């Protein structure tokens, strides 16, 4: 693990700089700490910071940038003749990378010596055989140019890593030297260190922005790639979902409408279960319940929110599904063929959403000023009349916000629908039929497939993009409504 060693080496340099700078400033002050501007540890921290942070930053940037550089060089060196008509440059590059990984593996297991692996005159057939022997995954027949490119790839990577090690260590040493050199009793070490810590804090806070950026970029790039292979209009308005797994392109129907219908149908069933139960629980808990009942019932309901969704998924598949079949299935009413159905997933998802609706509504009902209730009682209204005609209308915007948040949860929920809703994409009104959702199809299109070049895999990114936009819209809308409502009573 040379990377780990490099990291530890930089840290060791930083610690050495810390110790050295600290003892240096103490010696300079003649053991009289009062003559120092800052506490001795700050001088040490200053040197350590200047040694470690630029070096680690360069390390990270290098690690991200090097693959791009190597890829472009190798790609330029690949002759056009090496790319078969049915293939593309990126696929051949993937092949090159796999071969290079195979060579690495063969060298590390000892089936090949380093010289054999980098021998440019090696026989292709012999190398393929040795690689297979070493247990490397060699899918297609390796061709001469691919092997050459793989060897070039390895050489470039190797030299790149060597230069990186040297550069990083040089920067760390130079930083340590700089930090130690400026260590004098009148140096304002604390101010510098605090400025550095502040920059680190800002960097940590920016990770939230980077994450959003990462999500948006990874969705947008792959979605654009997908729309290059598959027409956008057919994706958004197609009413048939039938991906082919064997053939590439053309043969698949990838219309999103059946998936959207399944998603909304299941979410509606879930909300029909969750909203009345959650809302009435919230009303009872905030308006009627004694403190004792509240202290017991509220956490009990919130336990439902803490249970992982895989548990609900299994509950849908193995408990609720068979139960519904025994009532609505062949032996009962005959409406249901199998346990996985819109009803199964919707019902279980509804249970999961009860605490979302109830605790959010509870907060909102509690925020309605007591004076409004008192006014209503003063006019002779009963408690339920007060709730129905004063409290609920006042809390309505907030409650709508809570329901929107619950809806966004329902649309983005994955495990319950993967296990409970079935796999067939269809446009049907029967809630006892199996249907599928956007999230379930993202999972099924992306698991077990490491090749991202086909439209069947790339469609998952377009689905993800749709999902992201819808849930983001719902969340923003809900937050705006809730915030507006809060301001009204503050």
């Amino acid at each position, binding site marked *: 693990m040379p990377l780990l060693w490099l990291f530890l080496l930089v840290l060791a340099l930083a610690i050495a700089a810390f110790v050295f700078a600290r003892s240096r400033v103490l010696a300079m002050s003649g053991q009289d700490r009062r003559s120092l501007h800052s506490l001795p540890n700050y001088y040490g921290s200053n040197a350590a910071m200047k040694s470690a942070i630029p070096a680690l930053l360069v390390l990270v940037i290098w690690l991200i940038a090097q693959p791009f550089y190597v890829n472009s060089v190798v790609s330029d060196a690949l002759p056009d003749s090496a790319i078969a008509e049915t293939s593309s440059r990126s696929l051949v590059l993937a092949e090159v*990378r796999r071969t290079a990984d195979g060579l690495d593996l063969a060298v590390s297991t000892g089936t090949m010596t380093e010289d054999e692996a980098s021998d440019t005159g090696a026989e292709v057939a012999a190398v393929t055989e040795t690689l297979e022997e070493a247990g490397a995954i060699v899918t297609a027949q390796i061709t001469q140019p691919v092997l050459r490119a793989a060897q070039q790839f390895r050489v470039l990577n190797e030299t790149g890593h060597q230069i990186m090690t040297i550069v990083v260590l040089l920067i760390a040493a130079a930083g340590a030297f700089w930090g130690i050199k400026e260590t004098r009793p009148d140096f304002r070490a604390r101010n510098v260190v605090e400025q550095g810590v502040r920059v680190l804090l800002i960097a940590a806070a920016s990770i939230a922005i980077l994450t959003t950026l990462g999500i948006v970029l990874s969705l947008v790039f792959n979605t654009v790639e997908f729309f290059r292979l598959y027409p956008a209009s057919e994706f958004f308005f197609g009413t048939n979902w039938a991906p082919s797994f064997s053939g590439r392109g053309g043969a698949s129907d990838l219309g999103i409408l059946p998936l959207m219908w399944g998603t909304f149908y299941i979410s509606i069933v879930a909300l029909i279960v969750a909203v009345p139960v959650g809302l009435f629980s919230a009303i009872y808990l905030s308006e009627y319940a004694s403190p004792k009942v509240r202290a017991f019932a509220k956490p009990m309901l919130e336990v439902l929110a803490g249970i992982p969704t*895989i548990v609900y998924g299994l*509950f849908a598949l193995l408990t609720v599904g068979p139960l519904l079949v025994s009532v609505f299935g062949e032996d009962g009413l005959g409406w249901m063929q199998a346990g996985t159905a819109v009803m199964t997933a919707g019902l279980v998802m509804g249970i999961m959403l009860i605490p979302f609706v109830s605790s959010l509504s509870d907060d909102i009902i509690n925020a309605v000023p007591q004076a409004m209730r008192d006014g209503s009682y003063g006019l002779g209204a009963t408690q339920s009349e007060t709730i129905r005609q004063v409290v609920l209308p006042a809390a309505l915007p907030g409650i709508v916000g809570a329901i929107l948040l619950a809806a966004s949860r329902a649309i983005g929920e994955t*495990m319950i629908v993967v296990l409970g809703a079935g796999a067939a994409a269809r446009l049907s009104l029967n809630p006892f039929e199996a249907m599928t959702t956007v999230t379930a199809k*993202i999972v099924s299109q*992306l*698991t077990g497939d490491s090749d991202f070049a086909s439209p069947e895999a790339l469609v998952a990114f377009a689905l993800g993009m749709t999902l992201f936009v819808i849930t983001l819209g719902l969340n923003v809308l809900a937050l705006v409504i809730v915030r507006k409502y809060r301001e009204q009573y503050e």
Partner: protein
Amino acid sequence: MTDASMDSGPKKGSLTTVDARTKKRNAAEKRFKAYGIVAILIGMFFLVVLAASILRSGLPAFTQAEMKLEFVLSQEEFDAAEGQLLKTKAYEGIFISKLQDALTENGMSVAFDAAAIERLLGKPGSMIREYFRANPDKIGTSVTFSLPASSRVDGYFKGRVSRETVVDSRFFEAKDLDLVDALADAGIIVRNFNWNFITGSDSGVDNPSGAGIGVSVIGSLFMMLVVLVLSLPIGVAASIYLEEFAPQNWFTDLIEVNISNLAAVPSIVFGILGLAVFIQFMHLPQSAPLVGGLVLTLMTLPTIIISTRASLKAVPPSIREAALGVGASKMQTVFHHVLPLAAPGILTGTIIGLAQALGETAPLLLIGMVGFIARAYPEGVVSGFIDPNSAMPAQIYTWAARADAGFYEKAWGGIIILLVFLLTMNIIAIILRRRFERRW
């Protein structure tokens, strides 16, 4: 007469008699209150049903039917068996004759053949041979063998398989149940605590009785290590900046909006992010706990930031003012005084965030932590982070997606273990909060 005309007038309500309208209103009041009680009861009912079905279906996973047979292998038998061409077959023959003896000893006589034993146990010969070859000194002494019975036999004891439902196949035949009954009466087949389920690795698709969750628990553990090491310092640093230092400007607003939105992004989208950025772009190893940990870190960060900011906000300004007053810098105030006082709250929030991450499944499916990958314990710390492994919830999903009903029981059992972990973490969080919470 006047009395009569007064009686015929409209009846006015009084304090002692209740008129129809008041009755109606009071009934509506009662009804409304009843709706609330019913709603809460429905919620509780679902919770109880969920708990009951987890316990009812999951507890059997912790026991396993085993065949326990004690016998003596003499030196002659060992030599004879080693001299045969099909050695394991010879040991199987020895095992069957010893089993026959044990049954006759108990006064029972059931006819059975080698095929029946193979249906019940798999092939016991190789295991017995390996044992005696490894421990030659045990030849001639009394040795007890415990062999796990097949999932059909196991299911018979747990009520999953019955005489009525059993279908003859090459895996099992109805007449085998007579043999199973006889062996159970003789005390040879017993139900034992299934340690293999807790410590073992995943098994092939046709062997539910050998499946264990141990390896994926280790996978989850490595993932949680990554999440803890990354999300705690980053989350705390981000919260300190936002709560203590950030000026009111567009950049701070941008961060705030991003954090509140990330908290509501569906988990599957984080899986897509992990797949595209960490695997497709950075070429990190697929199915590795390291990648799973990175994805879950990004998911957990908003939770940790929100709870950390709340506990920083709860530290009264007087503490900060006192520190600044005696000459501490802003940074010293925060790190020496505010942060230690907020630590219990931060810790509680972190544990709750970790518990959420531990139960998350959907992103793990996309980065390939599903399927038959939790096959062996990692060899070391580095291999624990980068070698393919599963995690508890992903392992449960893998079992739930398999065709053999024997795996469903394992999935429920896995859920019990997962919930035990979550419950422990939440209880620790509650205890920490109770123990260290300060009201200012």
